[in-house]
């Protein structure tokens, strides 16, 4: 019984972090799918989402002890708005002016953007880590009332699951049903042909950056609160993890990013639970190396035919 409960707990923890990774990974995979490049400033957009939500929560909590769900909702909306604008700005500043140039050029300008945003937050918010209040307390105990180990599903974890599920469902519907979603798919399959049909491809590309950034902002709020503290480097490691998740699932594939995030989260959590927390990163990046060596297209990716 003890073993089962322990296993269950690791699974819950893994899926929690994994769903947040998946939310961030969507941004990488959508941008890659449409312009064939990695958005290296994406981790910073996620970090800014976390900062904005913390600022809003602190502000609202100070002025009035308001109703918590409302505070969270306002924080979420503000984070989404600021992060989306950042995503849009990254595309306008770091990608669009150099599109069509050698692939290394937008890569470098995006890294520049990432360094800029990191340092901007350093200056504006200080470089020490700041506590993030846990507004969703309590949880459900799973398993018997005996003296053994009890698995615990906190309401925070439950919130992360539900919010992620809602976002993913919304995104899937948007991509498969809406006019813009259909255009996103068309542009990712043949950008030039799309513009030959009178589609403003620049707008569609900007839209993918904005959507990815909005989901990253949601993850920023959730993970910031889950971990309990944030700092300006908060986005760096999470960005790398989410990137790994996107590659693991098959970069360019949205279901792949969802699956990759969950797999990575669970792998990390089992490593911490059964081996040692210190090996967590070793396992995730080891996984990245293995995937790149043996299945470069990822779990759900299709082999890419080099476009002429």
């Amino acid at each position, binding site marked *: 019984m003890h073993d089962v409960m322990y296993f269950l707990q690791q699974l819950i923890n893994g899926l929690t972090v994994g769903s947040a990774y998946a939310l961030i990974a969507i941004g990488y995979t959508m941008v890659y799918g449409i312009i064939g490049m990695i958005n290296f400033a994406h981790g910073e957009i996620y970090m800014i989402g976390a900062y904005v939500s913390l600022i809003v929560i602190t502000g609202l909590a100070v002025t009035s002890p308001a109703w918590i769900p409302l505070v969270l909702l306002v924080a979420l909306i503000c984070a989404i708005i600021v992060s989306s604008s950042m995503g849009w700005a990254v595309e306008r500043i770091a990608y669009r002016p150099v599109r069509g140039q050698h692939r290394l050029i937008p890569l470098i300008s995006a890294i520049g953007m990432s360094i800029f945003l990191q340092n901007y937050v350093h200056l504006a918010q200080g470089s020490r880590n700041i506590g993030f209040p846990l507004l969703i307390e309590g949880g459900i105990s799973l398993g018997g009332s005996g003296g053994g180990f009890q698995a615990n599903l906190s309401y925070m974890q439950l919130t992360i699951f539900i919010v992620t599920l809602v976002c993913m469902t919304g995104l899937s519907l948007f991509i498969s049903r809406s*006019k813009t979603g*259909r*255009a996103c*798919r*068309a542009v990712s*399959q*043949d950008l*030039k*042909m*799309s*513009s*030959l*049909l*009178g*589609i*403003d*491809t620049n707008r569609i590309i900007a839209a993918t950056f904005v959507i990815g950034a909005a989901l990253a902002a949601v993850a920023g709020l959730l993970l910031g609160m889950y971990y309990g503290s944030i700092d300006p480097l908060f986005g760096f490691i999470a960005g790398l993890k989410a990137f790994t998740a996107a590659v693991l699932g098959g970069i360019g594939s949205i279901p792949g990013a969802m699956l990759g995030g969950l797999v990575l989260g669970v792998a990390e959590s089992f490593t911490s639970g059964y081996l040692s927390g210190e090996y967590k990163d070793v396992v995730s990046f080891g996984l990245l190396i293995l995937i790149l060596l043996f299945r470069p297209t990822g779990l759900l990716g299709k082999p890419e035919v080099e476009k002429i």
Partner: protein
Amino acid sequence: MLVLENIHTHYGKIEALHGVSVEIKKGEIVSLIGANGAGKTTLLMTVCGDPQASSGRVLFQGEDITHKPTAQIMRSGIAIVPEGRRVFPGLTVEENLHMGGFFTSKQEVRRSQDHVFELFPRLKERRNQRAGTMSGGEQQMLAIGRALMTKPEMIILDEPSLGLAPLIIKQIFEIISSLRDEGITVFLVEQNAKQALKLADRGYVLETGRIRLEDSGANLLANEDVQKAYLGG
């Protein structure tokens, strides 16, 4: 309807078109023939603004479109069926058609789609099939149908018979001539010179980036140089 005045187009430093002038009148079918690498596709793509002409002017319905962005040109009444068809392989037939009518209203999309399904009953049968899984001929029909979704004044076809079986080619040419009956101006590029000239009101012969000959379709078919170079005569 479409006028190209002394067009020069470059790819980097290489000049692909050395001063080409072409005129297409409303309701005509005009064929452009020429060997591989003569610059036919470049000429068509210059009309679409991708790449843009480095000098000269492109006028469509009296308006200078030389330096307009591609998406804007394609919204002004020109539609293209590009070389190699370029349907969206992962999208269904219906979705492909909807992409063609992207900038029109919902009602117009429905009306145009019904019209396309009338022209190509085969597409209606396969409306929920992914385009990438269809045969070359079906994909070509889809590409033409997608171009018609914009309700174009003029349609540009780049090698519509390329890689298709003779029976299908015949069908495609029948469809092209039916476009004229709908009042659509057709600018056709073909390596299949015999068929293209038979169908055309007028034709142009493009050789290494220059217009070599310009005449009615029938006269070009009878022309000895054309016969020798392009009709295997």
